[in-house]
């Protein structure tokens, strides 16, 4: 008697059917399992766009499979094209997935500690194959995700898709918007360079402003883990970034998606009678089935966008890496990430409590409650003049406030510092560091005599300097002189001092402001980091 018997069913089948048919049946079986319901002939039919049989076998994966149960089996013909969805929701999902994949790669090399985080970034850039590409893609993907999600919201607003019965879809969407923004924001701190520390500090200072004082102080402690950012704050932001927010995002996305399936995609406004919603009552002859039409379209969008993202980060977009974070040195002209510039702009308007706490909270409240408050039954553009105008005004306000958030608007600094910063900015490499090293000829030069400088690069630098000085001069009516001194300092190292000298018209006192930069032959700021 055998201790155990091995039973290999395929052998029995080979015996009874012969080798080839048995293998073919097995392959058929396998494909059916993988696709959750389509056998080889069905898959071939999908790829060839043959008419489906009856009953339509292509509906099975929607019923049995996990992934496709989240997709409608068919769309109305009218929502199959670009308009009205522009596939922006789908692209948001894609961006989220893209971020998770690139993010997990980066996570492998990253430790959330101020002692080593920055060194990890250097390692990713200098020692990890594909490290820079992954970092660039993750950063680019984050910005693309913010844009795509914002556009998606804008389009659901414009087509009135937030109205009955999709109010809750919109509300969960607002949660997703928050998750998206805070994912980007929390990720900003992780490289632990000057930019991340100070940009995030600006944002976090709003928590501190929350009244009354005791709430603000404790909120600040909760956010930063200490009165200022340090080991505690970095760990908190890291955990938010990799656990709390993605989890919240996945949950909210599940609900959001479920609601989309339940209600169907809203048809273009205007094709239905006012107050009617026929998204789920699609006559047979106006259906576009998910398989194969929508599926192909979505996969093509995804592969096309992947190509764009990969190629753009490989050849053009490089995420910056500033010097190591230093809580003692505040760089001039620090800005928050562009999608929060509007907030920075509002903060410049006055009271931190009003503009930085009350108003942003009000905006969130307004967004969530919009579909429950704005209950006009018609989705047609012609009937929503006020709503759509309000939307346009909001977009314009957003743009204007964002502009006001930049250093171009109402930043009080002294003109001498501005003039020096035109060559030696503190938040990006700037013209001097980018100038060809070999063209910085030793000597002392006056900005006004820029035309006599010995090399084209120096002429350009001094010209920039001179223009900036003239601007300052005409603004203040003072006589300002700019000097640039280039010294040989060490092997392959030059010392460049930029000096602004002027006489105060009121007191007749001479003043001077100068800044020094050391430039090494090989520092090569042109590569992006």
């Amino acid at each position, binding site marked *: 008697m055998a201790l155990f018997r091995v039973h290999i069913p395929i052998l029995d089948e080979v015996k009874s059917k012969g080798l080839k048919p048995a293998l073919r049946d097995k392959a058929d079986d396998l494909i059916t399992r993988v696709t959750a319901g389509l056998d080889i002939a069905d898959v071939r039919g999908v790829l060839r766009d043959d008419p489906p049989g009856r009953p339509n076998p292509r509906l099975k994966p929607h019923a049995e499979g996990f992934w496709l149960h989240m997709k409608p089996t068919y769309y109305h013909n009218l929502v199959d094209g670009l308009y009205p969805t522009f596939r922006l929701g789908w692209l948001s999902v894609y961006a989220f997935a893209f971020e998770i994949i690139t993010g997990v790669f980066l996570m492998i090399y990253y430790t959330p500690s101020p*002692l080593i985080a920055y*060194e990890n970034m250097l390692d990713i*850039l200098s020692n990890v194959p*594909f490290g820079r590409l992954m970092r660039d893609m993750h950063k680019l993907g984050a910005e693309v995700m913010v844009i795509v999600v914002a556009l998606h919201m804008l389009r659901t607003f414009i087509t009135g898709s937030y109205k009955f019965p999709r109010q809750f879809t919109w509300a969960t969407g607002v949660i997703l918007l928050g998750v998206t923004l805070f994912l980007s924001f929390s990720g900003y701190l992780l490289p632990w360079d000057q930019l991340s520390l100070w940009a995030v500090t600006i944002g976090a200072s709003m928590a501190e402003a929350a009244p009354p004082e005791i709430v603000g102080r404790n909120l600040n402690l909760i956010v930063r883990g200490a009165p200022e950012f340090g080991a505690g704050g970095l760990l908190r932001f890291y955990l938010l970034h990799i656990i709390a927010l993605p989890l919240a995002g996945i949950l909210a996305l599940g609900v959001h998606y479920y609601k989309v399936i339940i209600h169907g995609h809203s048809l273009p406004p205007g094709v239905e009678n006012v107050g009617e919603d026929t998204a789920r009552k699609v006559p047979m002859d106006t259906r576009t089935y998910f398989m194969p039409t929508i599926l192909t379209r979505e996969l*093509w969008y995804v592969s096309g966008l992947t*190509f764009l993202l990969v*190629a753009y980060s490989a*050849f053009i977009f490089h995420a910056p890496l500033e010097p190591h974070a230093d809580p003692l040195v505040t760089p001039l002209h620090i800005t928050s990430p562009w999608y929060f510039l509007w907030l920075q702009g509002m903060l410049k308007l006055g009271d931190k409590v009003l503009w930085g706490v009350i108003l942003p909270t009000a905006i969130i409240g307004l967004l969530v409650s919009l579909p429950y408050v704005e209950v006009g039954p018609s989705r047609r553009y012609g009937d929503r003049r006020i709503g759509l105008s309000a939307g346009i005004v909001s977009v314009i306000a957003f743009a204007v406030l964002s502009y006001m958030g930049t250093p171009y608007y109402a930043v009080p600094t002294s003109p001498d510092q501005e003039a020096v910063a035109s060559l030696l900015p503190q938040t990006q490499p700037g013209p001097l560091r980018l100038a060809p090293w070999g063209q910085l000829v030793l000597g002392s030069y006056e900005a006004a005599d820029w035309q006599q400088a010995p090399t084209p690069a120096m002429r350009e630098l001094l010209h920039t300097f001179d223009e900036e000085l003239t601007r300052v001069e005409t603004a203040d009516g003072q006589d300002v002189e700019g000097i640039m001194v280039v010294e040989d300092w060490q092997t392959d190292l030059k010392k460049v001092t930029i000096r602004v000298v002027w006489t105060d018209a009121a007191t007749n006192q001479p003043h001077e402001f100068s800044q020094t930069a050391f430039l090494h032959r090989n520092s*090569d700021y042109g590569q992006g980091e």
Partner: protein
Amino acid sequence: MKWQIALGTLSVVATVIVLAIVAAGEPRRMAGFTTSYQARQVETGALIFENSCRPCHGAQGEGIEGVAPALNAADLFNGNRLRAIGFAGTVQDYVRATISSGRPVPSSGTNYPQRMPTWSQRFGGPLRDDQIDSLVAYVMNWEERALQGGAEVTQAPPGEVVGTDITVPLPAGNADQGKALTEGNLGCVGCHILGATGPAWLPSGDTPGMGDRAATRFGQADYTGHAATPEQYLLESIVLTNAYVVEGFGPDLMPANYGQRLTPQDAADLVAYLLSLR
């Protein structure tokens, strides 16, 4: 639908091609980043040196007599200094260790009145690891020139020197020039402003500024020097340091050779500057 499948497939192929191009360039890119990062460390190190080390070690690391040794010196890089004290590691280790932990105890054979301070946060100093790394990169970047002869140490001004006679008439002094001199190679600020090795010049608490003290000091009962005016007292303090040793300090702490290093004009400028500190 056909063109969508075609474009989709094309995108996938194109993506793979881009990845292959990136892969082919990675070794060069990584090496390039490493080179440029090391260069940036030298730049950063130079800035920190300028702020933290220059007052003692001199602008170009040429050292300041009586304050701190030269770092831009052949014997540091050719291993002589290491051998003399029996240090087994590399020059880089030596430099890193010294900067990080400082020298709480003077090396034998030296009599610098101040200690090399501790710089690393790990040992209670002010600088982070990356800043220490940058300083090391900067100091090590002197190697080539140091081995070829070191920094052009600014020599004592040629020609006339002020000497040690405190009664010589001095030209008119310029306080701004004098201030600049104290911050330069003479090393005065290293002892009198940054460190606590010498008496502070600036007024603090009950102690008046150097100018006021000079005005009264030579009239005090315990005064042992020969000055008859505030100007003479200051000149004496600089060129004949042991004629009168300020209370609370020992003799021989301040370099004794300034009489041979300063021109009369320099001395006058210094005196003018010190007198202005009230």
